[in-house]
């Protein structure tokens, strides 16, 4: 941060994928998977969740990843986050990534919301003061009252999403990755999140990658859309055109050639 932060250029590259593929190995059973560690002769089926993805995202861009369930959006986001490793190809990520992947978003269900905030702050390596500031900000934004001091396993999905988003957004990310988690919140909270995302983007030149099925959300936040289909990038361009392409007049009954792709 110290070296990059001195002279931020508008054309800095935040994320670069070079011919990235992700293969999942499907074994017949866990037993075969176990034996597969020790022997190369154990057979498995290959499933490509992403194949030959190549793109660059510049600093400050906001990109919507669009596609049906199983198109490979989540796998792509997980690779950006660094949770999942590509099978082949090269990924470059410049900057601190804050990710909100699915609902649980990396919470310990046994710890309270407040303790989870502290834990996350510690994992990020923040100082005591910074953690206290983070806690204050998250408590204020999530706005779930006394539940903040209850174990997170007692939370509703909406509450988890609130705390999860609040943490991801408050941690001063350079790259913010948001999976479909926000779709569970009510309308008021979604609008609050949209406002927060826009605020982050404007103030701090943050790159945002956003998965959504909602046209309104995508259009209001993003200026670029990437359409994924069966693990491949089939369209990459301005958000309006991407959405039109995705919702376009294609007959969904016609199967596309290629192997069956499943999402993680």
């Amino acid at each position, binding site marked *: 941060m110290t070296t990059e932060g001195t002279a931020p250029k508008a054309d800095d590259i935040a994320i670069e994928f070079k011919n990235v593929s992700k293969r999942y190995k499907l074994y017949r059973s866990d037993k075969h998977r176990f034996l597969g560690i020790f022997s190369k002769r154990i057979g498995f089926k290959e499933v490509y969740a992403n194949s030959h993805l190549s793109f660059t995202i510049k600093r400050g861009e906001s990109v919507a990843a669009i596609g049906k369930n199983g198109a490979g959006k989540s796998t792509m986001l997980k690779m950006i986050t660094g949770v999942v490793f590509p099978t082949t190809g090269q990924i470059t990520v410049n900057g601190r990534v804050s*990710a909100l992947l699915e609902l649980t978003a990396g919470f*310990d269900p046994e710890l309270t919301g407040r303790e989870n905030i502290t834990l996350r702050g*510690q994992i990020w390596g923040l100082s005591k003061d910074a953690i206290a500031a983070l806690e204050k900000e998250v408590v204020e934004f999530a706005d779930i009252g006394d539940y903040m001091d209850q174990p997170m396993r007692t939370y509703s999905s909406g509450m988890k999403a609130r705390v999860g988003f609040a943490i991801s957004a408050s941690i001063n990310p350079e790259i913010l990755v948001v999976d479909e988690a926000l779709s569970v919140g009510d309308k008021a909270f979604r609008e609050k999140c949209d406002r927060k995302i826009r605020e982050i983007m404007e103030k701090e030149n943050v790159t945002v990658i956003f998965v959504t099925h909602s046209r309104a959300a995508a259009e209001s936040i993003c200026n670029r859309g990437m359409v994924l289909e069966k693990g491949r990038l089939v369209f990459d361009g301005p958000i309006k055109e991407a959405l039109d392409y995705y919702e376009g007049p294609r007959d969904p009954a016609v199967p596309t050639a290629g192997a069956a792709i499943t999402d993680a």
Partner: protein
Amino acid sequence: MADAKPDISAVFAARVERYGGTLFGIVEEHKQFWKQIFQLAAADLVKTYRGSALGWLWALIKPSVTIFVYWFAFAIGLRASKSVNGFPFSLWLIAGILPWFYISEMLTQGTTTLKRYSYLVTKIKFPVSTIATFVSLSKFYVHLALSAIVIVIFIVFGYPVDVYYLQLPLYMALMFAFFTVWSMFAAPLSAISKDFANVVSSFVMAIFWMSGVMWDVNQIKIPWLSRLLLFNPVTFIATGYRNVFIYKRWFFQDSFALMAFGVTFTAMVLLTLFTYHRLRRDIADVL
């Protein structure tokens, strides 16, 4: 295929480079994350003992009950309670079983760490190898507390702290190192295969009785068998704790035991590097 044999030394060099890189990666993760490891260990400890009315006392109650049960079975039931080196049987039992509480926790819970902390693997970018370390550290804190209590018990029984206690930190460190590496080895395997976790948990009792926790390995009359048993790290550690508390022997007096532990430890490290190298990138895919 057979006639195009690759040069053995080249293959060996490639292996050294590959697993050396894995080792370097693990060390690097620990160097960058040492502060967090202590914080996460504290959080793990709090989590383990919270939510029950007796809380922290459970860390004491469980070992006390275990010691009482074994003492009862042996001293009262089997009348096998002869004093050892001037120490009553009960103290001999306590000295050897003290490390077992940590070891059994690491054998069972140390094997399932990645499952319990799956959110650190699949939801955020996290140095996965450190999970074994902070869980092990959390169990080790409890072990330190128990050790302090055992030392007090010995003093109360009229056996003051002597120079042999100096080697207690050494045995503690060796135990911590071995079973932390064990957890790094076992946790990815059990994340992939339920069978593995089941095998381990069903062998815990067997390991307990086959290791020199409840008997003295040096009393075995078949020389090759007693030597073979020393390759079992549990035997080495339990005997080591008794060297400190009961036998009043130095660790370097039994160089064979030290060598045997060294061999097992090295094998464990190599095995861990092998599996960790193969599985690190796949763990998030299967959890």
